[in-house]
C-alpha cells in the first residue's frame, strides 16, 4: 500500500520467493497442505514487518527464518512431530533397494532421501533442508534456528550421517566410483 498506491514493493518479494519458501515448507512440514498454510502465514508476517526491515537486509534469509519459526511453532503446537516420525519409519521399512546409480533413478533416490529426512529430529531436518536444498549459509541457518553457525553446521552434518546410515540399512553399498 501507501508508499506508492499503485505498486507495492512487497509484490516483487512474493513473486521472487514464494515458490521457494513453499517448497522449503513442504519438506519442513512433510505435508503440502501445511506448506500451503504456513507459506501464506510466512508472507503475511513478512508483509507486516517489511517496512521495519533495514534496506540492506537479506530478504531471502529473513523469509527462511520466519518460515522456520512457523514450522517449529507448528510442530510444537500440534504435536505432529511424533506422528510424522512414525509414518516415516513405517515408510522406510517397507522399502528396500540398492543405492541408485544414475540420473534415471535420481528422482527415486530423492524421494527416499526425503522420506529419511522426514524422520529426522526437526532442527536437523530444517538445517539440512536449508543448507542442502536451498543452499543458505550457516549464519543464516543459525539465525533461523536461534543457534550459532557452528551448531547449524553440526545439525546438517548429523543429518547427513543419519541419511547415510538410513540408506546403508536398506542395502549394502557399492563403493567404487564409476570411471
Amino acid at each position: 500500500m501507501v508508499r506508492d498506491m499503485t505498486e507495492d514493493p512487497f509484490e516483487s518479494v512474493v513473486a521472487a520467493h514464494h515458490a521457494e519458501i513453499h517448497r522449503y515448507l513442504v519438506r519442513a512440514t512433510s505435508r503440502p497442505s501445511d506448506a500451503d498454510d504456513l507459506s501464506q502465514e510466512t508472507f503475511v508476517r513478512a508483509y507486516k514487518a517489511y517496512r521495519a526491515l533495514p534496506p540492506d537486509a537479506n530478504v531471502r534469509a529473513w523469509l527462511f527464518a520466519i518460515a522456520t519459526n512457523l514450522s517449529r511453532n507448528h510442530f510444537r503446537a500440534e504435536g505432529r512431530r511424533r506422528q510424522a516420525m512414525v509414518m516415516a519409519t513405517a515408510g522406510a521399512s517397507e522399502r528396500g533397494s540398492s543405492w541408485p546409480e544414475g540420473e534415471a533413478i535420481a528422482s527415486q533416490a530423492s524421494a527416499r532421501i526425503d522420506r529419511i529426512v522426514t524422520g529426522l529430529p526437526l532442527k536437523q531436518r530444517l538445517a539440512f533442508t536449508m543448507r542442502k536444498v536451498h543452499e543458505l549459509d550457516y549464519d543464516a541457518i543459525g539465525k533461523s534456528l536461534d543457534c550459532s553457525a557452528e551448531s547449524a553446521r553440526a545439525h546438517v552434518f548429523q543429518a547427513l550421517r543419519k541419511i547415510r546410515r538410513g540408506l546403508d540399512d536398506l542395502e549394502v553399498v557399492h563403493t567404487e566410483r564409476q570411471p
Partner: protein
Amino acid sequence: MNPENKTCREIEPDLVAVAAGEAGASATRGVERHVGVCRGCRDELERYRVLEGMVADLRRAPLAGADPALSRAELESRLADIRSRMVAYGIFSSPLGKILIARSELGVSMVRYVESESAGRSYLTRLAGGEAVEDKAAVEATYRELLDYLNARGTRLGWPLDLRWAGSDFQRRVLAATAQLPYGAVTSYSGIARRIGAPASVRAVAQALRHNPIPIAIPCHRVIGSSGDLTGYAGSKIGLKERLLSLEGVPVGRRAHRIERGHMYILAEGEVEYCVPSCGSISRKPLGEVTLFGSRQHAEAVGLSPCTACRPDLHPISS
C-alpha cells in the same frame, strides 16, 4: 572404516565435511592421510560423495503433491485485504503544533492534534493495533498539502477520505454535511442538524463533530454555537479553531471567542444570493438557518451572487 577404531570414529565428521567441500585445510590433510591407509574410511568418504550428489538432486526433483500456485493465489488475496485495512501514518510539526496524519489506500483517515510523538503513536496503536504502520514518507505529500493550507497557500484539501473511524451512520452524515461547508463560511450545530434532516439532534451533532477523525479536512471548525460562540474544538483547543477561522477571513472576537455576525455576509437557506447583515429580515434569522461568509470573495468562489436588493457588491461591509 572400523567402528572399533578410535581414529575412524573421530574422523567421520571430517569425512562428511570433505565430501561436502566444507573442510578446512588441516581437516582435509588429516582425511587424506587417514584414507591413504584405511580402506574402510576411503569407501565411506566415497559414499558421502555419492550422497552429496543425490542430495544435490533434491534441488531439482519434483515434490509430490506440492503446488504453490493455489497457495500463492490465496496469499495474494489475503495481502490485498490486509493492504486495504492498513494505514500509514506520520507525526509532523505544523503551525498548529504536532499533528498526526494517517492514510490508507482509500484516503486520509485521520488528522489529529497530539501532545507528543509518543502520545500520537500510542493513541493510534490503541485504536488500530498492528494495522497502523509509521511511515512518514507515505504521508509526506499529504502533510505538504496541509502545510500549504495552514500557511494560506491553498483553500482546498481535495483529499479522498477514509471514514473508517467514524463511529456510526449518524456521525457519517454529520461529517458529510460538514465537509460541504465552503472555505470562509460558518454555520451552527443546529444548521448541520437541519441539513441532515434531524433538526432536533443539535447535541448529537456537536458530539459527532467533537469526535471528528479528520479535522481541518472535514472543517468542523466552521461549525459554531447558535449564539455565535465558538464553543469547543478538539477537546479544549478553542484557540486552534479561532486560528483556522481567522486564516479563512472569518472575523473572530479575540476576547470572547465569538463570531462577529454583524461583520459577515449572510446566505439564507435555499438562496443563491448573499446579503449584507442588514438586508430585510435576514438579520433576525437564527444562525442555524443561514450560512455566514467572512468575505465576498469566498461567497462568490462557491458560485453565489450578490443580492440585487442590498447590493453587497456596491456596499461591502467595512472591516
